[in-house]
């Protein structure tokens, strides 16, 4: 009797997203925040029982008296962060993206955003970055926060992006929601001539046949897919747009205006209400009508399972991205 092939298993939540052998950096958010806090006394760290799981523990160890453990109470976390900001401090409030977006929405909306307070909400497990199922998969967080007036939204790609985004969002006057990759975070963008600028999209590589506009981990996937497509003599440009709101409309419109290219938006988010629809609406409003396709998660509650299995199943793995682009061309 031959043994059945071993099935992939769901990883613990703290598992790294990095592929085997991929370069990584540990806890980029925690280290970047600690560096910044050396010179900015206003910064305090606050969490809802997820300090270790959002890399805020690095800050907590460095600045124990500036760290506020608020307990597993996300509404309180956001209200208290608002109060702290009212008294002149700059809270970085961390939890999982599902809890900030679904549970604490009204507190973020009324106590923070309506008052334009400088609270930085930094949330792990964005989109499909855990195999725990819908309770932990924030597949609609961007849609939720895009509807909130005055909220700046960041979806960084890798450790390099996060390290650049932390000081940039600290310097921004209003509230910010940032998606977070934690633990040993892939390191990709340092190989490109790129550094994070709030509100700016950046062309990471050029290509004549397809323009991929992407954010978050999908930029990493798009760059990998572009290499696969290159072997098939397909030229793929990758425009990384880590600021979801406000969109870098100028750069996106200029890139999409180049004739003859298929425009694909790739996002680690539901097909509803994220970067894809934001870009589609932008193009329509400005009278651009390129061929347009979306790589995004389906409008469904997603399965539990191993991340590589799920990324293949829902079409956001590198091979699936490359396969679908080939099909569309």
């Amino acid at each position, binding site marked *: 009797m031959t043994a059945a092939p071993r099935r992939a298993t769901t990883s613990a939540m703290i598992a790294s997203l990095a592929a085997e052998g991929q370069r990584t950096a540990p806890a980029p958010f925690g280290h970047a925040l600690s560096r910044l806090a050396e010179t900015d006394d206003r910064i305090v760290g606050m969490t809802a029982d997820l300090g270790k799981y959002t890399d805020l523990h690095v800050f907590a160890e460095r600045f124990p008296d500036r760290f506020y453990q608020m307990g597993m109470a996300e509404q309180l976390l956001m*209200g*208290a962060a608002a109060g702290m900001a009212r008294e002149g401090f700059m809270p970085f409030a961390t939890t999982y993206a599902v809890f900030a977006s679904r549970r604490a929405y009204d507190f973020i909306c009324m106590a923070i955003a309506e008052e334009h307070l400088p609270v930085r909400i930094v949330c792990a497990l964005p989109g499909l970055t855990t195999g725990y199922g819908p309770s932990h998969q924030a597949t609609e967080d961007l849609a939720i926060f895009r509807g909130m007036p005055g909220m700046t939204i960041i979806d960084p790609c890798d450790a390099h992006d996060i390290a650049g985004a932390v000081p940039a969002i600290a310097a921004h006057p209003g509230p910010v929601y940032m998606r977070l990759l934690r633990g040993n975070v892939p390191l990709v963008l340092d190989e490109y001539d790129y550094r994070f600028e709030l509100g700016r999209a950046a062309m990471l590589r050029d290509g004549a046949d397809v323009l991929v506009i992407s954010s978050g981990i999908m930029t990493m996937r798009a760059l990998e897919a572009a290499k696969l497509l290159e072997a098939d003599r397909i030229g793929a440009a990758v425009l990384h747009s880590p600021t979801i709101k406000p969109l870098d409309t100028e750069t996106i419109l200029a890139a999409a205006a180049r004739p003859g290219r298929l425009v694909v938006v790739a996002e680690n988010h539901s097909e509803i209400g994220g970067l894809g629809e934001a870009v589609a609406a932008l193009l329509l409003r400005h009278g651009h009508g390129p061929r347009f396709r979306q790589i995004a998660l389906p409008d469904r509650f997603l399965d539990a399972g191993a991340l590589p299995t799920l990324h293949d199943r829902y079409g956001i793995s590198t091979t699936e991205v490359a396969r679908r682009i080939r099909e569309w061309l």
Partner: protein
Amino acid sequence: MPPALANAPTLPERARRIRLHALRMGEVQGQGYIAQALGIADVLAVAYFHAMSFRAEDPAWEGRDRFLLSIGHYAIALYAALAEAGIVPVSELDTYGSDDSRLPMSGMAAYTPGMEITGGSLGQGLTVAVGMCLGLKRKASRSLVYTLLSDGELNEGATWEAAMSAAHWSLDNLVALVDVNQMQADGRSSSVLGFEPLAEKWRAFGWHAQRVDGNDIPSLVAAFDAARNATVAGPRVIICDTRMARGVPFLEAREKSHFLRVEPHEWADAIRLVEGAAP
């Protein structure tokens, strides 16, 4: 605490004037949460004219005690108190609830001097208060944060997250005021969602709790003093049993509802009654 001037109005007189300001706002609009305003006037008089430090000419003065109106629909009452305190001009009260007024129907921080937070989404005020108290302690400030909640608001779970947190952080700079007027949107508070025994509940959460007649000024003065001076660690709560529409007997006698109906001609009658009560 502001220096007591020999000719300063007494607290009952302050409360009477707060009622009068509120009634005049209600008369202009022909509506308003007037029953709540009349009920809470004594608490506001003691808060602003006995307990709190503030500078009328500089509402954002760093050394002020903060007053958070979590129950945003009580704005009519707070505007009345802010006018009496000299923070909002009395002449401006006529604009209450009108387009482009600084005095909207539900209190918002960006609109009104002295309005510390945007309330109205009930259950948020105490969470913000916790953060402000933590921030004040970081700054080694001695300012206190007073937060006005209502009995109905205690239905909101986040209030109890904040209650646990305030005790956990030993926030002795936090004074919660709970207006128990036994009325919320759908009816009598204790039948909408029972909340008793209230003082015991707060004590079990680690708070220094007092329960007083919220329309009895000497009791309120004693309670505010005790809240400030208590030597126990941790946050303080003053549960204030109030009577809606207090001070206008014919409204007080009317069948109560969340939004008390007042006929157009009755505003002037009510104002005359309160004017006539001057010492």
